């Protein structure tokens, strides 16, 4: 493993200033619950505003609605959005994963059809991976697409699909041929661009423990896909899906999820001083600084075209521990009666969200398995 800190991109300060002015204005309407959910919050109007300012699809070619800026400038935008607790969920997946996948492996038609809409903040994506019998053991998935005249027929079921009920498209990983006897279970999987308005798709929201409808069960019943809804190569779905993981796992969304509480917590502690609080606060700030360095390092490596898959797993693992511990540290310092209502509401919302941090995008156990393999233990 190797982490090299990148240089700050030129113009970063001006970009941050622009973002902060925008977020200060937009943020007036955000309740503590919205800030707590951040990239798990879906707000199409906000995403359109962000798109209009050129902050989605920033690195993509202008021909596809992008803005041809650097990956590190994009990181500046992500950091500022998350530090402010902005509800970026409606464009987050398209910007982070689906758009880059289509740009890299999609057909020209797919690029022209899809990318400009993502960049405008108008097209929302969800990721169809987990199934009832395929969670961490993703290769066990059973949803299948069969070749039929003119395209593919899709049957099966995806589950825990975040924002499927609000999204326009799903990138689904499904089986297009049986896993070869005695061969790799990862063979025979393909990715499809699925328009969620197609007939035969039913989406059932699953209420989460906080009472929110954020994830879903999606059932495909003889859904007809066109020939060119296949993304990339038939049978290469596993390699395609896992090649994006360094982007998915290394960003600021893997350590900043609880940040808004730290910011509010500092003010609450200034009003109600707690002896020794500075030590706990200092430990959190030091971790935050180190994690930011780790995440930026991976961002720099991605920008140079490297594949820092293990480094990304390390960012997510260390980052998840931090963002899960943060609300508990504050809880250890401030009793509810000493906390302002806004902080109480934020912590209440975060407390109910924190279990997801080390589940979404690869569980802690899977990540540590990847790290262990790199160490030479597996």
């Amino acid at each position, binding site marked *: 493993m190797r982490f090299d800190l990148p240089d700050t991109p030129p113009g970063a300060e001006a970009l941050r200033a622009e973002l902060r002015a925008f977020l200060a204005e937009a943020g007036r309407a955000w309740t503590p619950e919205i800030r707590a959910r951040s990239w798990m919050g879906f707000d199409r109007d906000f995403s359109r505003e962000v798109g209009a300012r050129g902050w989605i699809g920033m690195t993509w070619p202008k021909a596809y609605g992008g803005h041809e800026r650097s990956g590190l400038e994009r990181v500046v935008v992500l950091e500022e959005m998350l530090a402010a607790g902005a509800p970026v969920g409606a464009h987050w997946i398209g910007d982070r994963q689906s758009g880059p996948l289509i740009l890299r492996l999609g057909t020209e038609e797919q690029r022209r059809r899809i990318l400009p809409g993502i960049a405008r903040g108008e097209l929302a994506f969800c990721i169809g991976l987990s199934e009832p019998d395929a969670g961490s053991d993703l290769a066990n998935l059973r949803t299948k697409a069969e070749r039929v005249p003119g395209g593919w027929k899709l049957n099966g079921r995806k589950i825990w699909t975040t924002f499927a009920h609000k999204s326009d498209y799903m990138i689904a990983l499904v089986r297009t041929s049986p896993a070869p006897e005695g061969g790799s279970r990862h063979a025979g999987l393909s990715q499809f661009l699925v328009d969620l308005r197609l007939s035969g798709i039913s989406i059932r929201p699953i209420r989460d423990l906080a009472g929110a409808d954020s994830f879903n069960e999606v059932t495909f019943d003889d859904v007809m896909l066109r020939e060119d809804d296949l993304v990339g190569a038939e049978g290469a779905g596993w390699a395609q899906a896992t090649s994006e993981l360094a982007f998915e796992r290394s960003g600021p969304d893997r350590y900043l999820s609880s940040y808004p509480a730290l910011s509010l917590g500092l*003010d609450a502690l*200034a009003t109600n001083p707690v002896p020794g609080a500075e030590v*706990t*606060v200092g430990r959190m700030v*030091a971790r935050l600084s*180190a994690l*930011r360095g780790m995440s930026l390092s991976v961002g720099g490596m991605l920008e140079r075209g490297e594949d820092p898959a293990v480094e990304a797993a390390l960012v997510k693992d260390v980052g998840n521990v931090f963002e899960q511990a943060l609300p508990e540290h504050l809880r250890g310092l401030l009793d509810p009666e000493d906390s302002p209502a806004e902080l109480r509401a934020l912590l209440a919302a975060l407390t109910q969200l924190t279990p997801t941090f080390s589940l979404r995008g690869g569980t802690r156990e899977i990540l*540590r398995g990847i*790290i262990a393999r790199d*160490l030479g233990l597996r």
Partner: protein
Amino acid sequence: MSELRGILVEQVERLVADAGGVAPLREVEAGQFPQALWDGLSEQGLALALVPEEAGGVGLSWGDAAALWQVLGKHGAPVPMAEAMLGAALLSAAGVEVPDGVLALGEKGAPFGRHAANAVKLDGARLTLHPVEGANPGANIGREPRDDLTLAPRSAAGILPNSHGPRALRLGLALIRAAQIAGALERILALAVDWANTRKQFGRPIGKFQAVQQQLAAMAGEVAAVQVAVSNAARAVDARGLAEAGFEIGCAKVVAGEAATFGAATAHQVFAAIGITEDHELHHFTRRLWAWREEGGTDRAWAAEIGKLALARGGANLWPDLTARDA
């Protein structure tokens, strides 16, 4: 990593590794000084590494130096070369000629003080050099010499520039110990992985058990965090000078202290009984990790400083302050 830094790291690594594994550590702990290793490193001009070229030094960056300190830490830092580099950098910055030989930092609990001909003291911005007259020997739990010195009146003096500031010694030492912790953690992680792949129980290497894999993976995360925190701190010194890099150095020492605690515990858990025997090499590194947590300011002390500042600045400034420090 720059090409120059890579070459230097390789050279120093070879010199220290060739000195015989943990043999020099056992020598130090038995009260001897690994003179041959010290001489070998001195011949490379390492002591003057941080002194600018125009002042007769090598003109390395603090980033380069931190990479070298990590290598020294990886081998248990059997000689006080990191301290000599810092001392020389400060003397040179204050316009004082750098003497040959082992240089002690401070007067109380001075690392390897009994082996030093001279000691550096800092009072405000005033840096003084003193011949060492006597040493009352002491040791940390790494059994490294930490001696209270009797110093002769100053033989030379100078004023440190503002970029170094009155806390230059403490800041420099904190960065050194954080870097050494990063190196020593890397070492014990490698040792533990190797052991986990070798030691068999229940018919297979213990590293095949997920319980062991998960612990070592978590440790790898801490090792990565310290390395990044140290790089960030060294880069801040290169960009703004020691005096203005207190935040990053403090962060590095906090993360290093926490990671040392976790890493030493994890390595011992993986090694089990063999790891706590006198004959085994692990304790030479874990005892140093525990000792280095305490030197140059504990993680608690640095966290308090960082936390106080953050509380005084308020929640709205925390993120902007953090990003404003980007080099």
